[in-house]
């Protein structure tokens, strides 16, 4: 298995918007479950994606079982805050007295990094949770957006360590930081597409992650790959056909345009796979195929999961 990806305790899947993080996360969950693991999938999203991708109703902000050994949660700041506070304050009456107080809530809402802290804290808490002597989860998968928010999301423990004086919050930040930066426990995957902006952003993100965050890096997934289907001479011919002046769009031109589009995508897939191999040599590259079914659901996720299993099996340990 590559980097023992499935043997970690926390697998983070990140990348810019629209690259397929949720589908890769869902597919990894199925891989892990097939390997006998008890899995929790976490996301932090306005609209939940993972449970629906696996063919289930959304889980909401509380951990819900989807199937045997497969659970998910859409972590929500307010709920995570409540749980964290309850852990610390022990008594619900006190929690209510303090946190349902609108002044306190207004005050806490003013500090968004606090919300990000509790979100990450919730994930960390589940990673470290022990029930009856053994870990509650074999693997926690976190689908984490890498917008400015996502990076700051993962960088929160470090920011807290830089900012917060000694005390309860700092102790927790320290523990979170240790889990996140432990290569035996945590692995961060990147997902990208064979397109200009996603690839360039992924390269930048990789640099930031490596230089700033110290989070151990795992696999780079190149999603939506189109394999070559037409030879260069054929593409040339198709392009000639398309260029021919015509008052109406002909059958040949329609077909030629479709073929050229495919050939372009295939060329970009090859080009960007090469570029990523050069610019990000420390992360094994796994290619995931473009799929043509009308929707994204369980069947497509299972196909992806099979591709990932095959790819992971091929890599050196």
């Amino acid at each position, binding site marked *: 298995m590559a980097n023992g990806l499935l043997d970690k305790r926390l697998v983070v899947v990140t990348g*810019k*918007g*629209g*690259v397929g993080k*949720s589908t890769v996360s869902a597919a990894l969950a199925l891989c892990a479950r097939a390997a006998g693991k008890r899995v929790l999938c976490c996301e*932090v*999203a*306005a*609209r939940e994606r993972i449970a629906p991708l696996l063919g289930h109703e959304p889980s909401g902000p509380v951990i819900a079982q989807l199937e045997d050994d497969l659970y998910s949660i859409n972590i929500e700041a307010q709920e995570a805050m409540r749980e*964290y506070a309850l852990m*610390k*304050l022990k008594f619900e009456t*006190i929690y209510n*007295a*303090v946190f349902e*107080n609108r*002044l306190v809530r*207004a*005050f806490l*809402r*003013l500090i*968004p*990094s606090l919300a*990000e802290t509790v979100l990450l804290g919730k994930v960390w808490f589940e990673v470290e949770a022990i029930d009856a002597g053994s870990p509650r989860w074999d693997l926690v998968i976190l689908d984490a*957006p890498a*917008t*400015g*928010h996502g990076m*700051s999301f993962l960088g929160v423990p470090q*920011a807290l360590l*830089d*900012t*917060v*004086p*000694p*005390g*309860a*919050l*700092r102790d927790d930040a320290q523990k979170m930081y240790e889990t996140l930066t432990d290569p035996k426990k945590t692995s961060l995957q990147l997902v990208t597409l064979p397109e*200009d*902006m996603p690839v*360039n952003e992924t390269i930048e993100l990789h640099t930031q992650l490596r230089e700033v965050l110290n989070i151990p890096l795992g696999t780079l997934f190149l999603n939506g790959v189109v394999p070559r*289907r037409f030879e260069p001479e054929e593409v040339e011919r198709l392009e000639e056909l398309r260029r021919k002046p015509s008052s109406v*769009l*002909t*059958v*040949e*031109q*329609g*077909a*030629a345009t*479709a*073929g050229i*589009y*495919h050939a372009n995508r295939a060329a970009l897939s090859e080009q960007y796979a090469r570029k990523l191999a050069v610019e990000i040599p420390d992360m094994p590259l796994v290619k995931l195929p473009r799929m*043509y*079914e*009308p*929707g*994204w659901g369980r069947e497509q996720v299972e196909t992806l999961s099979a591709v990932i299993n095959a790819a992971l099996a091929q890599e050196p340990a």
Partner: protein
Amino acid sequence: MSQTLRELVRDRRVIVCVGSGGVGKTTIAASIALHAAMEGRRALVVTIDPARRLANSMGLANLGNVESRIGPERFAREGLEPKGELYALMLDVKRTCDEMISRHATSKEQADKIFKNRFYQTTSTVLAGSHEYMAMEKLYELHDGGQFDLLVLDTPPTTSALDFLDAPNRLTDAFGNDALKWIATPAVAAGKVSMKAFGLGGGYLARQISKFTGVETLSGVAEFLLSMRGMYDGFKERAAHVKALLSSSETSFVLITSPNQMTIDEARFFYRVLRQNEAPVGAVVVNRVRPNWPAAVGKPLDLPHLSASFEANLAERLVLTVEEQVSLARADGDQIALLRDSVEEQTLVCLVPVLSVDIHDLRGLQRVARYLFDQTGDIPRSALPSLGTGPS
């Protein structure tokens, strides 16, 4: 009253582009601004996270928070003749926040003290709502300045439309509480946490709260808030103005999405949130729509039709390719119809097809603008889903 997109862009002063990450918001926002400039307006596009090459082509590479004109020579180089003017600005969140503090501070000393505060340095990019709020702050400042006919704002990719609309609320809620001033007192800052401010009273509760945050953290935050004393009213007023601007008749929201199942689901959700918050949504743009070539040609592109022009093996591969693309195009059509049914009749739905090259210069933006505003380009309208009745 329905309008075309041309009319919308001609008549408004502010266009806010919202939507999920990765759908091409920056490109669409820049195209809208370019179109306005071509048509004679003085337009500014405020971007957050532009692609390097697009940034370079718009002269944005090494700028701070200052608007830069994309000069006529740059247009001429690409064969374009604008009747108006195009400006661009790349939002620097931290700098905008610093400027906001400087503007509201009662003295330079107060501003400096805030800038030095540890909490400020770490959280200044996330103060009261992060990128979203700073984008709003910048928008307000530009609108107030009155220098531009049209401001097009490209918002940060956001996990929640609510973050964006909620940002001014967070400030007004927090600073709207007179009692927050009780927190920002020297006593709390000194570590003598006074729970009277919370209306809770008693040392026991103070100890409970300190278990949660660490009393030093609480006093640190109190000190931070204390350093901003006197600025609250200014923040409040500003936030109220921003809210008013966002719901005024001068402003229109353009919701941008791509046709895939998950982004359409999010777009429908964002649309509901926007409408619940009384934000005026002028148009929904579906970007990267896959074309249906048999539909464009008006004939099936199957083996019998293609065998006349291509040898068997090539014809088979072309047929497979067309079938794959038709499958995607049909799926897109279904998602677009779902979206169309979810928005009000007077909201425009505009389609932009997927283009085979990345957009990284003015000419590319102009191609996108022609699809957006004129429904013309290399890919014929007949290749895209029809939108039924209503303005398109």
